[in-house]
């Protein structure tokens, strides 16, 4: 097991290097003047007009050969310097770190209903294969799969915020934001819910949860559909296996056969897909945060893209790719842990 993880970790820098190379090559599609912002830590240098810009291109070597620039950029990235973001008026690296907890909180919270709901509904659909329950779940998932996140989110906002006024948008109410920022409230993780629990502050906890309901449902509904389908077909496959028949022949009750024998093995493909879903969830996060005015990485990236803030967009892409690679590693290790056949290879 340890060798397996070790082997995977050895491969990690290679993937990361390739990712960095790709992000950099993309940025090289821009003209030297456009790229000036990537290397320019202080935006006030940019105000000097064409002459100043030309001088800066010269100064920062933006006309240098590809490899020279690549080396310099990689050096900067390794030292954590991702450039200056005009749209947020702070260094990109700093913005990414500051906003990460909010996005992680939303993403993790959304994974809960997706995974648990998918396991439960997928099992139900498979057990009642071709029955009414199966058909309803199947239709429901196809509908969900075709429903655009942004439309779902906007309509949810229209009903629960505009009409009923039950659930607000944003991340916290104004008073709660003040409370979180105050001296008395200690920030442990930057995730509001976790911090509120650690501080024993019930009011902030409730407020944070209230703000989370709509984004989480919006994120979950669409991806939930895909996950249910995987779980369903995997469970169907497993139920056809000989060992399930054996379990039944032994006289075990159906419930035990389903829950303890079949479901465990049916979970394996779901683990792999969960990794992929996490990747797609990241795209969904951008949209969801935009709709609900949730101050996180996704909103940061979308604003940066709208304002053509290249350093921020590229830094964000690199950062998310890194998270994704690490996430895939975790999923693979988990998979090897769950399935002894993989471990032995």
């Amino acid at each position, binding site marked *: 097991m340890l060798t397996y993880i070790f082997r995977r970790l050895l491969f990690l820098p290679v993937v990361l290097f390739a990712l960095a190379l790709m992000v950099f090559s993309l940025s090289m599609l821009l003209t030297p003047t456009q790229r000036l912002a990537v290397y320019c830590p202080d935006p006030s240098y940019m105000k000097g007009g064409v002459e100043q810009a030309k001088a800066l291109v010269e100064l920062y070597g933006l006309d240098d050969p590809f490899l020279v620039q690549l080396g310099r950029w990689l050096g900067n990235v390794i030292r954590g310097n991702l450039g200056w973001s005009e749209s947020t008026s702070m260094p990109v690296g700093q913005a990414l770190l500051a906003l990460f907890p909010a996005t992680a909180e939303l993403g993790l919270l959304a994974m809960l209903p997706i995974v648990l709901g998918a396991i439960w509904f997928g099992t139900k659909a498979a057990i009642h294969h071709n029955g009414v329950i199966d058909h309803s779940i199947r239709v429901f998932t196809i509908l969900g799969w075709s429903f655009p996140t942004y439309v779902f989110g906007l309509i949810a906002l229209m009903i629960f915020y505009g009409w009923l006024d039950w659930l607000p948008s944003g991340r916290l109410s104004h008073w709660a934001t003040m409370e979180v920022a105050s001296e008395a409230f200690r920030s442990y993780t930057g995730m509001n819910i976790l911090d509120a629990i650690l501080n024993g502050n019930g009011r902030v906890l409730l407020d944070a949860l209230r703000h989370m309901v709509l984004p989480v449902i919006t994120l979950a509904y669409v991806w939930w559909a895909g996950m249910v389908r995987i779980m369903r077909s995997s469970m169907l496959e497993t139920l056809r296996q000989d060992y399930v028949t054996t379990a039944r022949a032994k006289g075990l009750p159906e419930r035990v056969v389903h829950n303890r024998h079949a479901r465990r093995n049916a979970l394996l493909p779901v683990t792999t897909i969960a990794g992929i879903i996490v990747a797609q969830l990241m795209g969904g996060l951008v949209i969801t945060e935009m709709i609900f005015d949730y101050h996180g990485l996704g909103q940061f990236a979308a604003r940066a*893209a709208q304002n053509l803030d290249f350093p921020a967009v590229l830094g964000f892409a690199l950062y998310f790719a890194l998270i994704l690679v690490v996430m895939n590693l975790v999923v693979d290790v988990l998979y090897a842990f769950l399935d002894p056949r993989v471990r032995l290879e």
Partner: protein
Amino acid sequence: MKTFKYMLRNPLSLTGTLLLLFFIMIASLAPVLTEQLPYQVTPYQMPRDGFWQRPQDPSSEHLLGTTQGQYDIFYGLVWGTRTAFKIGLGVVAMGAVFGTLIGSIAAFYGGLLDEILMRVVDVFMSFPFLIAAMVITTILGKGLYQMMIALASFGWMGYARLIRSEILRIKEMDYIQAARAGGVGDVRLILKHILPNSLFPVLVQATMNTGSMVLSAAALSFLGVGTEVGYADWGQLISLARNWIVGTGGNPFAYWYTIVYPGLAIFLFVLAWNLVGDALRDILDPRLRGASHV
């Protein structure tokens, strides 16, 4: 023929097929269904009735109302159907052709080349799709074609992997050995003997992808990095509706038509492709064939 019969017998795929036919009809009849004004440079540019921000309720003049900036919603939906077909089919075609090319080369030549190409695929796959597309449109700039290129450049890896595994399977079959023994060259062998037999899974994948590409394209437009302002595109209509979803003080649903109609159009379009793709996959999978009526 069998496939065709199956599609019509199954209620879900029948719905999908009918929906698709409906959209094809709308797209081809677009010039008849809407009125073009003499000053329009291209019919894809939605005409505006004034420059007001506030949307206008449906009326005899504007069948489904106007959205922010007085763009006619009906006009946008009708011409947006063409845009959706362009995006869906165009992006999938680009992705499928490129992916098939890479996958074929990797599978056929194997060895180091295969290893390198597949690692490249891995790297492309480690970017979250929508974010990658967002980055590229940021760099290329707004516009329909830029957006299509962005979507296609991160939408080919699935095909490459699929075609590679198909070819690896087929390559070992006897008839290929026979063709080789008969002196058939590499290119001819790939094009005439291997590819035709591995294309059906690609077709299924492509059908399933068409809907999701339209979803992603609309998402890009929603985020403001998609088509130019005023271009007849469903995603753009939704992004124009964003400021109006809370309605007015007394009536929270005052501007419901700005979001519901474009939302419905995207939903039905994607649903149609998903239903058809789902049916095609069931037909392809021999384990499911004939096993059930769904």
